[in-house]
């Protein structure tokens, strides 16, 4: 049993490393060759885990070989458009201004139900609302709505809105995020000063403290309600 436990840990770490090397794409964003690779890896990993007579190397070697194959395929798809089209295919327009493209539907083995479900996922419940729908190589559908169904934007409404910035977390569950504090060009004393102004005494009393380039901050002490506030003299380079 101890052998199986040890083997499972080893295989888990190696599979984790292989997936980390593969990148951060999620299942839905995977190219066909990445999906195939994921399925094979899942199957390969279980063999040496359950079968004690099989050396761990018999599971590790195929995993590493597949990671090399994946690396080479990714490299080739980046370098060559033709290779990329062969391996990953190309996006196909399934709805155009004239309606559904029946030929494309046949080519992709899609039914009307599949397309309607994909459109609903994008927030459109009728084909009449859609100008273009494109089936991406990952299998996801991207939709460009007709002008009358496009969401209003600040630009279209000619509103003078300020840019928004990504908030930086300075305190996370009572812990000072040193790197983020440095990134925000602050120091521990300054952070303590900010939380003191908001009624918290110590860093470990704060559940979360975030701040953005414009000085918009949010604090929530542990056991209290969160609140937004404005700070000045905080200029961070995003």
């Amino acid at each position, binding site marked *: 049993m101890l052998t199986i436990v040890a083997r499972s840990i080893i295989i888990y770490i190696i599979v984790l490393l292989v997936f980390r090397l593969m990148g951060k794409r999620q299942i839905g964003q995977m190219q066909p060759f990445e999906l195939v690779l994921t399925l094979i890896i899942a199957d390969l990993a279980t063999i040496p885990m359950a079968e004690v*007579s099989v050396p761990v190397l018999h599971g590790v070697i195929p995993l590493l070989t597949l990671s*090399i194959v994946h*690396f080479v395929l990714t490299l080739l798809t980046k370098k060559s458009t033709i290779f990329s089209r062969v391996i990953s295919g190309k996006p196909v327009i399934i709805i155009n201004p004239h309606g559904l493209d029946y030929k494309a539907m046949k080519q992709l083995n899609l039914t009307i139900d599949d397309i309607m479900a994909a459109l609903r996922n994008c927030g459109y419940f009728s084909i009449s609302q859609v100008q273009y729908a494109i089936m991406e190589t990952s299998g996801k559908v991207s939709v460009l709505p007709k002008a009358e169904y496009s969401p209003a934007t600040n630009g279209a409404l000619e509103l003078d809105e300020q840019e928004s910035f990504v908030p930086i977390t300075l305190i996370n569950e009572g812990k000072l995020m040193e790197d983020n504090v440095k990134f925000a060009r602050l120091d521990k004393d300054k952070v303590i000063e900010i939380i003191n102004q908001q009624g918290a005494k110590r860093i470990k009393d704060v559940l979360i403290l975030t701040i953005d380039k414009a000085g918009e901050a949010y604090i929530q002490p542990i056991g209290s309600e969160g609140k937004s506030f404005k700070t000045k003299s905080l200029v961070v380079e995003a």
Partner: protein
Amino acid sequence: MKVFHYINFGIIFLFLVAICVIEDVVVNNSLTQTQYDCFQIERQLERDETLNSMQMALLVDNLEYHWDNNESSLCYLVNHKSIQEIGMEISKIKSYVANNDVEALKVSIETIKYCCHSYLHFMGASVHNIL
């Protein structure tokens, strides 16, 4: 980051090459050694068919000792089930020698030689094996 990626995959590639070479060398050496020990026992049998001689005891001990040493390193590289028959036949040989059962010993030696030969053939890189 890109360089780091290349280095990672370079290391993995070198590791794979190293493992392939090590496997080839270790498996070849171990099985060839076992085959050689079997040939030695066969030669001794041709000279003298009695099994309870000092010479024969030494040769069988040699076979067992070498196999024990090689088996531990082979277990890292090959499926234990594929090679366990060799170990079982060696343990049978010990009892055949004690009982002076020449015919059974010959069968066991042939089985070991066959297992070694077939495994050497089975693990080698060839189109047959790949396909």
